[in-house]
């Protein structure tokens, strides 16, 4: 036994020493190293190949740090690193809702953007969203917007000539198709699937319902808390009535992937989702995977509500430079290079990341390769941002309060009027005296 103890002690020491070797393997290099903090970009190999090209041209080492897939964790990790003034990361990919939160710790890319001549090429709405008090926190890298997916074959089968233009139409079409398909033997067929879990995705979905019905966008740009209004209440009540009728009972736990799996298996007539689901439905990036709906579905803008206008929540990712970067100029150059039209086009064709510049959608190569995006240009152009810039650091709390209230209505714990009365009071307490309660602005 003593021998064993000695052996164990030696092993222990050896392991510690080795562990030092494991992590400390930073060799002395002449080249500067840039570290990029990435979330989900898609095919990692393709992405690395693009970065490597720039790295080789500029004689720089570029290392990628992949962050957590969960957006909440991603932001928390990022905040922790920035708070520690870490020089470990230079270029940062961040969500469209974070410019307000990250602004204090990011470099102003405004001057560099001005000099590059790319400023007027981006969608103005996205660039405006990334600008906090005149400071350009990040460059729009790729975008996202809520879309309506529909089954072309089923629409034809049940005699509908076009996808639904209003929510009311969607309801009746979904009901007809669902009844018909169930009678035809598919017992698990549903009319409409969407994202009803209590999470950021529900904020997007519910914002679309509320906004398209003239119910405003929760907190308006002029600091008006507008959520407690008739139009918003009606919109949420309508959605709550879908649960268990045209949408499965379990939709209140669905996230993007849950909805996509149902739709892609051919078990739903309509789906609200982001553009990524299109590519997967057609068989993946190279189109080789078998799917039940290949060639049998289309995408269009979401239905309009009582306001007569449709709405799509704005998503997408930006590239910014950490204020604590040791190589801010290099990192800025990389950000500009990655968001330049050529690279955006390449990312769209290889990685299906949607461009943030309208001109790219009319590029002949793009039109030839992916004709379906051409019709969606207005959707991306008019996508509605969530109230993240006006609420800045408090956006998370606002969003949690909002999706919790909506989820309570969807799961029938509260009626919409009570939920939004409570929500209004909660937002008032949360946001403080600078914000005031008021009616949503009229839709122009």
């Amino acid at each position, binding site marked *: *036994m*003593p021998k064993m*103890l000695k052996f*164990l*002690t030696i*092993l*222990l020491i050896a*392991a*510690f020493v*080795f*562990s*030092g070797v*494991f*992590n*400390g*393997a930073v060799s002395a290099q002449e080249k500067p190293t840039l*570290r990029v*903090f990435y979330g*989900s*970009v*898609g*095919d*990692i190999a393709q992405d690395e190949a693009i970065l490597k090209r720039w790295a080789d041209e500029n004689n720089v080492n570029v290392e990628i*740090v*992949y*962050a*957590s*897939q*969960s957006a909440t*964790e991603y932001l928390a*990790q990022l905040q*922790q*690193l920035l708070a*520690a003034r*870490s020089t*470990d*990361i230079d270029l940062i990919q961040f969500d469209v809702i974070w410019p307000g939160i990250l602004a204090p710790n990011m470099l102003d890319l405004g001057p560099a953007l001005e000099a590059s001549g790319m400023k007027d090429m981006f969608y103005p709405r996205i660039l405006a969203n990334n600008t906090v008090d005149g400071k350009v926190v990040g460059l729009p890298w*790729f975008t996202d917007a809520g879309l309506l997916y529909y089954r072309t074959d089923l629409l034809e089968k049940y005699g509908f000539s076009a996808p639904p233009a209003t929510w009311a139409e969607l309801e009746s079409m979904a009901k007809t198709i669902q009844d018909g398909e169930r009678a035809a033997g598919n017992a*698990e067929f549903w009319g409409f699937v969407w994202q009803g879990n209590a999470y950021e995705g529900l904020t997007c979905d519910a914002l679309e319902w509320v906004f398209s019905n003239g119910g405003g966008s929760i907190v308006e740009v002029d600091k008006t808390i507008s959520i407690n209004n008739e139009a918003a209440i009606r919109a949420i009540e309508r959605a709550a009535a879908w649960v268990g009728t045209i949408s499965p009972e379990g939709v209140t736990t669905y996230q*993007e*992937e849950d909805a996509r*799996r*149902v739709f*892609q*298996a051919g*078990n739903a007539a309509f789906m609200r989702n*982001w553009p*990524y689901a299109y*590519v*997967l439905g057609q068989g*993946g*990036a190279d189109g080789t*995977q*078998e*799917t*039940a709906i290949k060639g049998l579905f289309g995408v269009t803008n979401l239905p309009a509500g009582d306001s007569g206008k449709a709405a799509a929540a704005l998503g997408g990712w930006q590239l910014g430079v950490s204020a604590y970067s040791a190589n801010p100029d290099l990192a800025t150059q990389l950000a500009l290079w990655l968001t330049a039209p050529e690279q955006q086009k390449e990312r769209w064709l290889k*990685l*299906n*990341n949607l461009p943030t510049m309208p001109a790219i959608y009319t590029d002949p190569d793009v039109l030839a390769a992916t004709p379906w995006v051409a019709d969606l240009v207005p959707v991306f152009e008019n996508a509605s941002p969530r109230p993240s810039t006006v609420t800045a650091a408090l956006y998370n709390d606002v969003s949690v309060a909002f999706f919790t209230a909506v989820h309570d209505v969807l799961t029938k714990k509260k009626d919409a009027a009570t939920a939004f009365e409570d929500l209004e009071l909660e937002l008032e307490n949360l946001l403080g005296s600078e914000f005031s309660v008021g009616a949503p602005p009229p839709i122009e």
Partner: protein
Amino acid sequence: MAGNRNFSYWAGRIGFSALIVLIFLYTAFPFYWALISALKPESELIQTPATFFPQTITLQNFEAVFRNDAFLRGLLNSTVVSIVVVIAALCIGSFAAYALGRLKFGGKRWILYVILSMTLFPQISILPGLFTLVNQLGMYGSITSLMTTYLIFTLPFTVWVLTSFFRALPAELEQAALVDGCTPFQTFYKILLPLTAPALVTTGLLAFIAAWNEYLFSLTFTLTQPAAQTVTVAITKFTGVIARNEPFGEIMAASVVVTVPLIVLVLVFQRRIVQGLTAGAVKG
């Protein structure tokens, strides 16, 4: 009468076998489900109703997992971290457990409570403090940080379990040793420690699994150093070929790959765990 006993004998045998089968299915079915999910292409994975035997078998998920450097690196890191943590917890913990279980001194109750109370805080609420500490000790981004911090949850557990095992050992052995002129410390490592071998193996195994499964610390302390990340973190970073896509099949393939070493470990230590029978018999 004899026939009767025969009947109850067979009924017992069949009932017992049924019980074994039931336990087997209960514990293994989800693992089987992970395995077949890893072997199915996505089109079959999402179809209703689910198939209990894959109709098309594809190895692309496993191929993707083994092509993923971060995952393989993670496996190695997890192995190193878990082994070191277990050895450290057992060495340090068995000392403490012997003192608490066999030696005479005041305040034992409080010491045990203090040790236990270290594990009463939720991991998340001590995380920011730990993050600062790890930074100050210069361990951020290295697996050393994990080896050290994992002791927070493995050590108290080890001490408590081993203390109870030490207490359960018969006193006569120790008396005999003392009569033979052994010091208490010699008694500890020459006589008592070997006797608790099965307990050490069992406790070690549980500690190993706890360390192997840890996620939050590893995520936080190695964020910017992918080379130091453990396998649980590597798996949660799997991305599909399209952003937003959760590659369920690949995650399942990875979970199968991660679980197999542990099953092998258990099979290897089978005999050790069985030895517990003889160790118990010594007690008399």
